[in-house]
């Protein structure tokens, strides 16, 4: 029996490790093979891009070799999948080789794509695509002396919903530390009706932006950017001038999903929001950013969804009657005022609530960042469960 995981990010790495751990007996007996298919030899802690961009954190601190994170029982195929044939249960690799699967987990993530907005690639910096691009942000702000900085969201959805606001807070801190904040006009642009999309957390952000003199322009869906004129235009007919433009790009599904024709027009895979099964397929699952389910695209959700998808596969392999159902739990760290952080917390049945930032929560955010690499092993879920509380329930089906 072959179980294939496609994608070596948070969800994919954890999925492969959890399957290898839980099915150790079957693997040892030669009855099950777990494959991880990923062309990325490096694993990046993507929330770390923020500090590379705005606090000059060393990029090496947020990168590890994927080899070092994958259990030895997993067959790590170090190349990308070229196409996924769900009907014939086959993964076609870039080399032309194929792997037939009995169960599949797609964890191919999301792709920030500045080219989706005319002029954005040429004009805007971002801290979502790579460590190199994040470093460019740091280099640019170091040389910035005065003028208009426009920072915000160029397209939705995007991974890590708090990240644009976090960037604005950190950038404001940076200019204050340099003593030039009074020479910088900061404008935060968002397509949403408020500074943060969920109203309870926007009530936390808005007064802090106001106190810091960060102007907010809402209902601004970026249409295009004119790099010559240094102007950004919205679908709503507005325009804003900039001297420095830092924008979260629009995101889409991975190339392999678009090529395989299994996602919607933007490459998001239609997925059951509870079981993580791909709609229409009993033995194929999608997790993390790759899905179309109505939760934030974050590492935490990828982690929690991986637990559900792998448990459902193990249950099926062992012919048990349990079905695991994700409850939509989210828990996004949200860095705000200097040395303080909040969390965006909610689930399908529990709306996001207002949580004020604190130094304790900032310490928790920093601790988790250091602990992230260990969480990928699947050996620390007992600790995460203690913190998160209930993130899924188990339904027993009838015989």
């Amino acid at each position: 029996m072959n179980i294939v995981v496609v994608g070596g990010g948070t969800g994919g790495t954890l999925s492969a490790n959890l399957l290898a751990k839980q099915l150790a007996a079957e693997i040892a007996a030669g009855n099950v093979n777990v494959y991880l298919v990923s062309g990325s030899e490096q694993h990046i802690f993507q929330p770390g891009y923020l500090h590379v961009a705005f606090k000059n954190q060393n990029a090496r601190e947020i990168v590890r070799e994927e080899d070092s994170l994958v259990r030895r029982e997993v067959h790590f195929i170090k190349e990308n999948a070229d196409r996924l044939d769900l009907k014939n249960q086959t993964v076609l690799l870039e080399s032309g080789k194929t792997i037939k699967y009995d169960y599949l987990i797609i964890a191919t993530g999301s792709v920030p794509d500045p080219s989706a907005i005319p002029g954005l690639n040429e004009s805007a910096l971002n801290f979502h695509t790579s460590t190199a691009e994040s470093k460019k942000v740091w280099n640019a702000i170091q040389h910035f002396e005065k003028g208009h900085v426009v920072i915000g969201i160029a397209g939705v959805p995007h991974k890590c919903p708090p990240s644009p606001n976090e960037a604005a807070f950190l950038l404001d801190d940076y200019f204050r530390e340099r003593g030039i904040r009074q020479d910088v006009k900061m404008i935060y642009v968002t397509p949403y009706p408020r500074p943060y999309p969920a109203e309870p957390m926007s009530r936390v952000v808005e007064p802090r932006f106001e106190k810091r003199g960060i102007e907010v322009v809402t209902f601004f869906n970026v249409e295009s950017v004119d790099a010559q004129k240094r102007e950004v235009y919205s679908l709503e007919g507005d325009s804003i001038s900039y001297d420095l433009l830092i924008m979260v790009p629009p995101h889409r599904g991975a190339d392999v999903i678009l090529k395989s024709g299994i996602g919607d027009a933007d490459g998001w895979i239609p997925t059951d929001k509870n079981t993580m099964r791909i709609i229409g397929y009993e033995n194929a699952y999608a997790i993390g950013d790759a899905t179309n389910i109505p939760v934030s695209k974050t590492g935490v959700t990828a982690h929690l969804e991986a637990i559900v998808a792998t448990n459902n596969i193990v249950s099926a392999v062992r012919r048990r009657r349990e079905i695991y159902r994700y409850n939509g739990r989210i828990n996004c760290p949200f860095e705000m005022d200097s040395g303080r952080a909040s969390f965006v917390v909610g689930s399908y049945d529990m709306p996001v609530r207002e949580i004020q930032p604190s130094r304790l929560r900032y310490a928790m955010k920093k601790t988790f960042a250091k602990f992230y690499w260990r969480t990928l092993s699947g050996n620390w879920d007992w600790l995460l469960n203690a913190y998160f509380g209930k993130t899924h329930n188990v339904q027993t089906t009838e015989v």
Partner: protein
Amino acid sequence: MATRETIVKPTVVVDSRGTMCPGPITDLFKAYRNANVGDVIELLATDPAAKSDTRAWAKRSGNEILAVVDEKDHVRIQVRVVKKGRQ
């Protein structure tokens, strides 16, 4: 006032039922980005913020709310695109 009587045949239906804020308004923006002037976007939503968010966006962007109808378990909102981009 936009009511059931003002409902027209939509150009595109955006089914955002079951999504939490900001799901509905995000889905609306996606449809708006792909729409042409004159198109009617119909948004179906269960999130309570959908009505107020859509009304606020329509007012700000100069687009027209044709209908806001409370169905049994969701709201149906129709928006006609009358303005898009720089004009």
